[in-house]
C-alpha cells in the first residue's frame, strides 16, 4: 500500500508541468553551483600553494643583507584554501588569507577578496553551500506546500481516507514520495562535488576527506528531511495551499534573510566593536605608559639599564660586555607584544559575543543551523580562521627569535642563513575538532527535526 501511495504521488508530480520545469531549473542551478565551486577551489588552492612557495623563495634568496633589514623583508603566511571549499567557501573572502611575518608588528590577516568585488557580491556566491542553504529549502517548500492540502482542495480527502490505508501510511507515503524527489536533489548535491574532488585530487588525497564529507552529507540529509517534514506538516495543518505557501515562503524569508541580518545588526549595537582610532589610541597609550604598575616606556628602559649595569657591575652602558640596544628592543617587543595580545584578545572576545548572538538566532531558523554546520565542517568558519591566525603569529615570533639570535653575533646574513628560517605550513584542524566546534549547530538541527516531527504529529491529530 505504501508503495502504491508513493508511486501515485510521484506520478502526479510528474504530470504537473510546473514540477518538471522546477526540476530542470534546479538541475541547471546545481550544475552551475558545482562549476562555480570547483573553479573557485582549484584556482585558489593552486594559486595560494604557489604563492606560499614564491614568498618563501623570495625570502631565502634575498642575498647578503643586514639580518634586521632582511627580517623586515619577511615573508607571508598564506591560509591554504579549505579542503572542502568546493562545497562552501564560507567566510573565506571576508577574512583575507595573507599574514605578514615581520618583526615588531603583530601580524594581521589581510587582503579580503570582498574589498575588490563589485556590488554583485552582496547577492551571494552560487556554490553547493549557497544552494543548500538558500535555494534547496525554497524548492522543498514549493514541492511540499500542497502535499496534503491539495486533497482538501480537490475534494479527494474523503476518497483517500476511505481507502484501505491508515492515516500513518498516508502520512508516510506522501512524505516518502516528496522524500524521493528531495533525496534525488540531495544525491546530486552529494555525488557531484565528490566526483569533482575525486577527479581533481585522486583517490589517495580524497580518502582522508571522506569522513568529513560523509558528516557533511549526513547533515545535509537531516536538514533536507526536516524541511520536508516541516513543509508537509504546514500543508496538513493549514489544509490550504495558498496559506501554506505564504507561511512557508514567509518562514524561509525570515529564516534566510531577516533573522540573521537583524540579529547581526543587534549584535553590532549590543556589543559595539572598537574603532581602529580607539584601538590605535589605547595600544599606543598602553605601550607608552604601561599597564598597571609597569611604568612608562622611559621608566622601564631605565629600570632595565639599571638592572643590567648592576648585573654586570658597571657604571655606564658603554661599559657593558653585551650590546644594550638589542636587549632594549627585545624587551620592548615583549612588552609591546603583551599589549597587542591583550588588545587583540579583547577584540576576539567581543567578536565571539557578537557571533554567539547571531548563532543563537538559529533557534528561530534551521537554515542558519545548517549554515553553521556547513561552515564548520568545510573549515571555512571563523574558528578555523582564528586557528590559522594564531599559528601564523606564533611562526612570526619564532622567525623573530631566530633572526635576533643570529644578529647578536653577525652583521650580515646570507642565503645560507635565510634558508635556516623555517617555511610556514598550515593544516586545518581535523574532523574531531570541527565536530566539537559544530556541536551547537548539530544540536539545533536535531532540535528542529524533533520540532518538525512534533508539528507533523499535531497536524495529523488535528486534520486527519
Amino acid at each position: 500500500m505504501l508503495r502504491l501511495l508513493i508511486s501515485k504521488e510521484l506520478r502526479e508530480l510528474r504530470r504537473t508541468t510546473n514540477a518538471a520545469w522546477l526540476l530542470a531549473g534546479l538541475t541547471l542551478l546545481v550544475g552551475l553551483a558545482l562549476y562555480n565551486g570547483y573553479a573557485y577551489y582549484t584556482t585558489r588552492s593552486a594559486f595560494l600553494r604557489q604563492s606560499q612557495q614564491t614568498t618563501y623563495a623570495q625570502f631565502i634568496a634575498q642575498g647578503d643583507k643586514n639580518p634586521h633589514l632582511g627580517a623586515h623583508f619577511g615573508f607571508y603566511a598564506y591560509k591554504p584554501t579549505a579542503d572542502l571549499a568546493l562545497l562552501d567557501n564560507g567566510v573565506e573572502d571576508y577574512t583575507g588569507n595573507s599574514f605578514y611575518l615581520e618583526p615588531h608588528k603583530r601580524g594581521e590577516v589581510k587582503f579580503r577578496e570582498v574589498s575588490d568585488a563589485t556590488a554583485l557580491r552582496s547577492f551571494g556566491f552560487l556554490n553547493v553551500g549557497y544552494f543548500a542553504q538558500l535555494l534547496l529549502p525554497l524548492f522543498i517548500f514549493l514541492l511540499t506546500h500542497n502535499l496534503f492540502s491539495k486533497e482538501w482542495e480537490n475534494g479527494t480527502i474523503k476518497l483517500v481516507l476511505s481507502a484501505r490505508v491508515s492515516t500513518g501510511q498516508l502520512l508516510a507515503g506522501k512524505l516518502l514520495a516528496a522524500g524521493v524527489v528531495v533525496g534525488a536533489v540531495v544525491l546530486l548535491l552529494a555525488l557531484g562535488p565528490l566526483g569533482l574532488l575525486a577527479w581533481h585530487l585522486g583517490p589517495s588525497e580524497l580518502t582522508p576527506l571522506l569522513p568529513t564529507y560523509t558528516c557533511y552529507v549526513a547533515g545535509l540529509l537531516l536538514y533536507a528531511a526536516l524541511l520536508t517534514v516541516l513543509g508537509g506538516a504546514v500543508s496538513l495543518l493549514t489544509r490550504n495551499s495558498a496559506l501554506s505557501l505564504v507561511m512557508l515562503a514567509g518562514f524561509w524569508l525570515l529564516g534566510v534573510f531577516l533573522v540573521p541580518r537583524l540579529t547581526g545588526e543587534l549584535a553590532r549595537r549590543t556589543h559595539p566593536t572598537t574603532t581602529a582610532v580607539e584601538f590605535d589610541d589605547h595600544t599606543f597609550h598602553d605601550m607608552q605608559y604601561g599597564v598597571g604598575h609597569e611604568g612608562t616606556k622611559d621608566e622601564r628602559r631605565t629600570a632595565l639599564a639599571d638592572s643590567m649595569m648592576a648585573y654586570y657591575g658597571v657604571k655606564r652602558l658603554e661599559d657593558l660586555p653585551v650590546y644594550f640596544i638589542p636587549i632594549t628592543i627585545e624587551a620592548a617587543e615583549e612588552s609591546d607584544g603583551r599589549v597587542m595580545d591583550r588588545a587583540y584578545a579583547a577584540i576576539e572576545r567581543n567578536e565571539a559575543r557578537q557571533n554567539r548572538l547571531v548563532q543563537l538566532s538559529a533557534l528561530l531558523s534551521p537554515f542558519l543551523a545548517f549554515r553553521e554546520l556547513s561552515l564548520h565542517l568545510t573549515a571555512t568558519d571563523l574558528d578555523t580562521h582564528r586557528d590559522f591566525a594564531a599559528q601564523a603569529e606564533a611562526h612570526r615570533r619564532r622567525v623573530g627569535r631566530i633572526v635576533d639570535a643570529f644578529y647578536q653575533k653577525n652583521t650580515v646574513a646570507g642565503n645560507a642563513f635565510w634558508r635556516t628560517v623555517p617555511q610556514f605550513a598550515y593544516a586545518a584542524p581535523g574532523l574531531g575538532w570541527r565536530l566539537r566546534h559544530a556541536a551547537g549547530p548539530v544540536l539545533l538541527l536535531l532540535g528542529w527535526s524533533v520540532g518538525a516531527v512534533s508539528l507533523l504529529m499535531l497536524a495529523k491529530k488535528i486534520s486527519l
Partner: protein
Amino acid sequence: MSASLFRVLWRHELTCLYRNRVLVVLFSLVLVVLLAALWAGSSQWHTQQRTLGRIRAHRQEMQDSLVQRIRRVEAHGMHYPGFIWDDPTFAYNTARNEGPQYAAKVPFALQALVAGQSVVQPFYYKVYITKKQQLVHESEIDNSYLQFVGTFDFAFVVVYLLPLLLIVFTYNVVSSEREQGTWVLLKTSNQSIAQLTLARLGIRYGLFTLFFWAIVAPILAGLVGPAFLATSNWWWLVVAVSLYFAFWVALALLVNSFSLSSNLNALTLIFLWLVLGLLVPALLQFGLDRAYPIPSRIAITTAERDAINRYFERDGQTLTQEVFSSPRTLIRQASVVTPGMVYGYGVIVYKSQEIKDAATQQAERQLYRQIEQQQVALRGWQLTSPALLLQETLSALAGTHWQQFNRFSRDVDAFRYRTQRFFYPKMAQESTYRTFTVADAEAIPQFQPRVYADYHWLPIGPSWLLYAGITAVVLGVGYRRLLHATW
C-alpha cells in the same frame, strides 16, 4: 474612467483590504522592517560621525603635543630628555609618531539608507609615509562573520523584502475574483475589466508607495537631519524606488492576466523574484569574473617583493653597506642610540619605500583597471535585473558605491605622496640630523575631509527612464491581455 467610479473603487479597495486584514498586517510589517532598517542605518551613520569627531580631536591633541615638545627641546638647547626615538626634532621620528594624519571620507546622510561598500571599505585612513594605514588594521575594525551575514539596511529591505510584500499585496487581484465567483458579475457589468483591474492595482500601488514614503522621509529626517531633502540624490532615490515598486506591480498585472489560480500566480511571481533578485546577479557575477578576472592582491605583493630583491641585488648593497651596516648607524651592535642611527633608519625607510611604491604602482594599476572594467560591464548588464539596477543606483546616490570609495582611496594616495614629499627631504638631511621645527610641524600636509556622493558617472536618468519604459510595456501587455480576455 470617471472620478465617481474611481472613488467607489478606492472605497472598495480600502474596505476589502481592511476586512481581510491584509492592510493592517502588511503595513504593520512594512512599518516594523523600515523602522528596524532606519534605526540600524542611522546608528551606523552616527557611529561614523562620532569616529570622525574623535579623529578631529585626536589630530588636534597630537598637533598640540608635537608643537609643545619641539618648543621644549628648542628651549633647552636642543636637549631631549627621553628616548632618542621619540625626539620630535628628527623628521623621521615625527613622520612615525605625531606626523601621520587621518584622511576621512565624510558619510553622506543617505548612507543611513544604504550601507553599500561602506561595510568592507574604510572611510578613513591613517596616512603614514610608508602606507595608508599601519600598526593596526588595513581598514576599520569589523567582525568578518557579521560582514558575511550581511547588513540589514533600507536598501536590503527595498531590494529584497518589499517586492515580496508587494507580491502578497497584488498577486490575486484578478484570480481572487474568479475563485470567489465574482468574476461573472464583473463580466456582466458595463465597465471594462481591464480598466477596473488597472485602477485597483494603481490604488494599491499608490497606497503602498505613499505609506512607504510617509514613513521613510520624516523618520530619516528626524534621525539624521532634514538637509538631505534638499539634495538631488534624495529625489532620484525617491524616483528609482517608486519605479522599482511600479515594476513589480506591473509584473503582477501581467501574471494576473494569464488566468492562473492565485496559488500559481504567487508561485510565478516568487519565482520571478528569485530569478531577478538572486539568479541573474549570481549568473552575472559568474560571467564577469571570467571575462574580467580580478588579479589577487597577493600577486601585487609578490611583484613588489621581487622588485625589492632585484634592487638589493644591484645598488641596494651599497645602501646597506653605507647606511644600515655602517658603524655609525649600526643599531644592534651598540649600547647607546646615536643621532646617526635615527638618520640611517630614516634613509633606509625612505629608499626602500620608493622602491616598493614604484613596484606596486604598476600592479595596482592593473588591479584597479580590471575592477573598473568589471564595474563598467556591470553597468551595461544591470538592466537585466531591476534589483541589481536599484542596488547600484542606491549605493551611488548614498555615496557608498565602489566608485566613490575608489575615488577617495585615490585622493588618499595623492595625499600620501604629498606627505612623503614633505617628510623625505627632511629625513635625509645628514648635516644636522635634527631639522624638524615648529614651523615644519605647522606645515604638515592635511587632508580635507569631504563627502563623496557625486553620481554623475552613473547614467541614472537614462537607466530608469528605460526601466519606466519596460514597466509601461509590461503594464500595456497585461492590460491588453485583460482587455481581450475571453475567460
